[in-house]
């Protein structure tokens, strides 16, 4: 007997489990409207990965858009909680241009947002939930942590100007040491400063030794604070099956994030499936008090994981002849479905295709005969 739960895909089952986990920790489901005011995205396009948004004029003349980002909508619409952090989770679709297909694509996302007073515990809780969320999808997962303030703090200390700063951020995102060396030369950095800049690409690996190496590079309070915060969050979040690593070359979207960064990977999938971090700037830009932190899981990407499937697509194949009583066929099908079996009725001469079945019934005017599975 199969329960309805078993007919779900692995991703759907994991999503339900995560929903339960988030609700147990006090996160409220946030359901958004399908559309958003287009102006929200045009006024805040620095926060988007692409300025290209699907827009249309509604029947009342308002210019609306299909959401390219969930966080902006939540920050705009969620009510402010004085002296408290609002905890929300969502399962929504976003619409973004595909880099390769020259077309928009719908991406199914699940995520959490904490808005308001963001303390060290809130950061730890979100990091723990990010690690647990990766574990829910089965294969080996890895959560990488970084803090934007470390790389930016070093750029400040080295006196990198705007253009070179952008080049350095690009090079870091690609772990491109030769490009960082070019930036160092262009900025006229001395040997020691150039080595410090280039060392950023090497700062990845298990959290404890990597943060120890990073401490040696700290120049100023901002960088030291970033490392101290990462160490505290990692120490609390490194538990159970959680796999944590540090990658200080991870800089993310610098207009969007301003501190802790999270990236999650699942073995077997080619790109990050979890993206998140601290985004206080968005709240400030939208006139809200406090800060924000959260992450989003790309369920569309995760659904590409190979599924463990039962070989038999059907539990019961009901074949019937032309002289069979439709009521008898209907009773056989309904009875099997009530037992939780996957059942399909076909005329005897119909080709069941390549589908497999465990048991078969042949119903004719003469009665019901049991057949064989395939």
């Amino acid at each position, binding site marked *: 007997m199969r329960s309805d739960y078993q007919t779900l895909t692995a991703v759907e089952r994991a999503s339900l489990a995560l929903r339960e986990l988030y609700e147990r920790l006090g996160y409220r489901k946030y359901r958004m409207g399908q559309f958003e005011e287009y102006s929200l995205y045009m006024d805040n396009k620095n926060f988007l990965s692409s300025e290209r948004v699907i827009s249309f004029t509604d029947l009342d003349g308002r210019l609306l858009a299909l959401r390219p980002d969930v966080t902006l909508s939540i920050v705009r619409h969620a009510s402010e909680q004085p002296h408290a952090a609002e905890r929300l989770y969502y399962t929504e679709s976003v619409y973004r241009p595909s*880099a390769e297909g020259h077309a928009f694509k719908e991406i199914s996302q699940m995520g959490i947002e904490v808005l308001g007073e963001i303390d060290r515990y809130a950061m730890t809780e979100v990091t723990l939930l990010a690690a647990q969320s990766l574990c829910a999808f089965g294969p080996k997962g890895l959560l990488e942590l970084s803090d934007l303030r470390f790389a930016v703090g070093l750029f400040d200390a080295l006196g990198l100007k705007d253009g070179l700063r952008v080049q350095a951020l690009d090079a870091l995102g*690609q772990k*491109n*040491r*030769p490009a960082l060396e070019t930036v160092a030369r262009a900025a006229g950095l001395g040997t020691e400063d150039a080595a410090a800049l280039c060392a950023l690409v090497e700062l990845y690996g298990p959290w404890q030794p990597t943060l120890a190496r990073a401490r040696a590079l700290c120049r100023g309070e901002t960088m030291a604070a970033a490392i101290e915060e990462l160490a505290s969050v990692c120490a609390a979040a490194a538990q159970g099956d959680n796999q944590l690593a540090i990658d200080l070359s991870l800089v993310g979207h610098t207009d969007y994030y301003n501190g802790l960064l999270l990236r999650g*990977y*699942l073995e077997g999938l*080619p*790109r*990050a499936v979890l993206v998140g971090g601290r985004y206080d700037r968005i709240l400030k830009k939208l006139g809200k008090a406090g800060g924000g932190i959260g992450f989003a899981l790309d369920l569309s990407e995760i659904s590409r994981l190979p599924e463990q499937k039962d070989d038999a697509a059907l539990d019961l194949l009901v074949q019937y002849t032309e002289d069979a009583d439709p009521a008898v066929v209907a009773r056989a099908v309904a009875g099997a479905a009530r037992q939780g079996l996957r059942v399909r009725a076909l005329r005897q001469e119909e080709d069941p295709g390549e589908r497999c079945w465990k048991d078969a019934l042949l119903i004719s005017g003469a009665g019901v005969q049991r057949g064989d599975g395939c």
Partner: protein
Amino acid sequence: MSEYLTVALPKGRLGDKVYNLLERVGYDCREIREDGRKLVFENPAAGVRYLLVKPSDVAIYVEHGAADVGIVGKDILEENRPDVYELLDLGIGRCRMAVASRSDYREDTSRTLRVATKFENIAKRYYASLNRDIEIIRLNGSIELAPLLGLSDVIVDIVESGTTIRENNLKVFTEFMQISARFIANKSSFKFKNEVITRMADKLNGVIKV
């Protein structure tokens, strides 16, 4: 070793240089040279599987995780900007991205410049940096013909020795990008196969420094 490291390698002229480099650091590529039609080669001793693909497709295989690492020209990376790690400049296959035209060409800055190229994005970015209005004519080969036949004012293309340019009575006016082969890695593979990828990168780095 339980799992192979899958390496996407370019066919053709750059390929020969890449196979030499890999052999110098202990990754045998003899079978690739011997067999003209196979596209997948395994080297169990080194724990690697090679995929032989078109040079412009190497980064696609790596970005989508069909290959863990690959070797590809900087021109392809600049044109397509794949989301991969660019771990090393291997220093082989050196050439330049250049603007060329007929040797008697004089630019008329009062008109939109017609640019023939197969590197559409590189050309657009270069002329955008000069704030020059251009019209792109996208070609897939024999780019040098375009200015000779009046199809375009200039071409943006790769120049290695300059022989093709000279033999077609063209002249290089500007070189604006240095190109060489790069060792790239898929971002997820870099996390889960870090030890083997780092080992290969370190070996390659040792040779290119020498």
